[in-house]
């Protein structure tokens, strides 16, 4: 298997650049800047410094002893991205892209956000680098993630409510692309996932692959061997790709991505693009997309705003097609149980997004052997979800 994407940004039949002509030169500029930054030692040095001193890397790879015992004895390690500054893995990418924006002389930053974690991470780096910042967020998400909206505003960002379509992440991204088409000369668009047109899926993956690189070293140090499984939730798929990618060539390491089934895979209210979608083009790249029979994009549903997206990064579609990774899904209800399970067994309140991965562990515990080692990416912490979850759990 080759390391992808190819020169045109394709992962097999997926990926590419499907954007208005106005944006094509900006994508080319971004790619050129990214490639030159990768050869620039001072860039790498500054990013490493920020990742360690500002964001708090490396994050621990924590052996979740209680959870492991509860589930039946296989070993679960949690990659603690929840401990990062701003509370999720998103900062790994926004720091990198903010440095790129500075190199390109762009003084204005825009981003889309679903759960608000990427919005907060973007607003944070904009504050750090003194950049103007506009965040697009669906009206429905603004309601269910009000804490993060306040954080973004506190950090000096302007939060623009998006009222079109499903009023969630998909529409926020569409609106951000419209802004970018309009202000492309002065503005850098920090896409928060491994989605969008090339080079975004590649560069977001690369910035996030610090997760997998660290985890690989850490597991070798503590277990003296590679893990049997990698597990992560997949919305757009950046935390999953960040964990998976550095293990790509380790053929024996199995990868499992967990999508949001929403109310159920066959309920029509789901966000499981890889399991229920068809190949299509959304937001600049070809990938698996939830769509109706006429190619209209469907409204996704998940309790986790960060997974509530009808598309998925093209590299995941590729991993699925070539069977390098396996994808499964858990429902809103199961994710809530996962949310409780980790809180109760380990004293760690996960975000609802990685709670899906926790839920899968519990749901599929029989497939793992007693001596299996599993690394689960705990992509974010649950503070942002407490107000949403508390009435749901109180009902029980």
């Amino acid at each position: 298997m080759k390391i992808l994407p190819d020169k045109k940004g394709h992962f097999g039949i997926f990926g590419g650049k499907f954007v208005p002509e106005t944006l094509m030169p900006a994508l080319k500029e971004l790619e050129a800047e990214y490639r030159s930054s990768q050869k620039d030692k001072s860039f790498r040095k500054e990013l490493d410094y920020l990742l360690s001193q500002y964001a708090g890397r490396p994050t621990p790879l924590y052996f979740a002893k209680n959870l492991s015992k509860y589930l039946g004895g296989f070993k679960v390690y949690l990659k603690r991205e929840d401990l990062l500054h701003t509370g999720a893995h998103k900062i790994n990418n926004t720091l990198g892209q903010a440095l790129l924006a500075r190199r390109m002389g762009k003084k204005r930053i825009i981003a889309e956000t679903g759960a608000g974690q990427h919005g907060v991470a973007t607003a944070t780096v904009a504050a750090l680098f003194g950049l103007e910042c506009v965040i697009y967020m669906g009206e429905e998400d603004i309601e269910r993630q009000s804490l993060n909206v306040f954080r973004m505003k506190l950090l000096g960002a302007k939060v623009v409510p998006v009222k079109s379509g499903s009023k969630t992440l998909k529409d926020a991204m569409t609106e951000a692309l419209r802004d970018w088409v309009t202000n492309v000369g002065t503005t850098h668009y920090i896409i928060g996932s491994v989605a969008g047109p090339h080079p975004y899926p590649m560069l977001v993956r690369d910035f996030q692959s610090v997760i997998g690189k660290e985890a690989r070293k850490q597991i070798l140090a503590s277990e003296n061997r590679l893990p049997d499984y990698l597990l992560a939730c997949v919305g757009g798929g950046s935390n999953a790709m960040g964990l998976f990618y550095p293990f790509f060539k380790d053929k024996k390491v199995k990868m499992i991505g967990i999508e949001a089934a929403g109310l159920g895979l066959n309920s029509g209210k789901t966000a499981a693009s890889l399991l229920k979608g068809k190949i299509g083009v959304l937001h600049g790249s070809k990938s698996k997309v939830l769509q109706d029979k006429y190619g209209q994009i469907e409204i996704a549903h998940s309790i986790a705003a960060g997974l509530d997206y009808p598309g998925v990064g093209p590299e995941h579609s590729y991993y699925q097609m070539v069977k390098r990774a396996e994808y499964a899904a858990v429902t809103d209800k199961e994710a809530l149980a996962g949310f409780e399970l980790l809180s109760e067994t380990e004293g760690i309140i996960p975000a609802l997004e990685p709670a899906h991965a926790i839920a899968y562990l519990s749901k599929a515990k029989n497939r793992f052997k007693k001596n299996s080692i599993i690394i689960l990416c705990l992509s974010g912490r649950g503070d942002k979800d407490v107000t949403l979850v508390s009435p749901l759990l109180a009902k029980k």
Partner: protein
Amino acid sequence: MNRISRKFLELKSKRRKAFIAYLTVGYPDISTTEKLVLELSRLGVDMFELGVPFSDPLADGPIIQEASAFALKNKVNLDKVFSLAKRLRNKIDKPLLTMGYYNPIFNYGLERFAKNAKSSGLDGIVVPDLSLEEDKDLRKSLSKYGIYLISFLAPTTDVSRIKHIARNAKGFIYYVSVTGVTGARNKLAKGIFNRISYLKKSVKVPICVGFGISTRKQFKTITSLSDGAIIGSAIINKIKENIGRKDLVNRVSRFVKGIIPS
């Protein structure tokens, strides 16, 4: 010969410029779209872009977004656009194009799309989110049937890319007048005249300008250099103002007639 090329030859011989009207199919309903095209054709519109609604029209401003969402509620889809084109083709001989995003086309199947576009009497296809880098498959399918895939140039396109795009261009080039989304603007973009003059010298196919043109004065100014212009949001806005009125077609037609230079 494709009707688009024939039209430009005809216009050239008459020293006239192409007036291209965009209408979202099914806004407010398909039969109104049909009546509008026929009436506008009678009043002198040279070509029509039949807008295929899409759930995520990322190159469109609020006016066309709203029209698209409205048309989707009317359950407009490619099959309905094709049957509308077929009905129109039986009545008028002017170039008919579709304007719509790539996913519905890709989902329909490129070969099937091209075949049905041909049998519906369509002459050109405009896809705002399909770059030169990704358009080979669709271009190939369409060319089998003699249908043009219209190429875009933007204010941000650099010289070497202009040459590359121009080499592949068929029918006309759609020049996006501003960096931005569709919608009326008070002023024409800065530097647009230098840009169009440059394109006129370096590109062989006709240049038509779209995005932000809404008045007769703007149309005349732009087409003093370009070979034509596309008017979209201004017409859609006029439709919006008249939704629910029995004389919508008359009112919108009168408005468009006011933009067409005599």
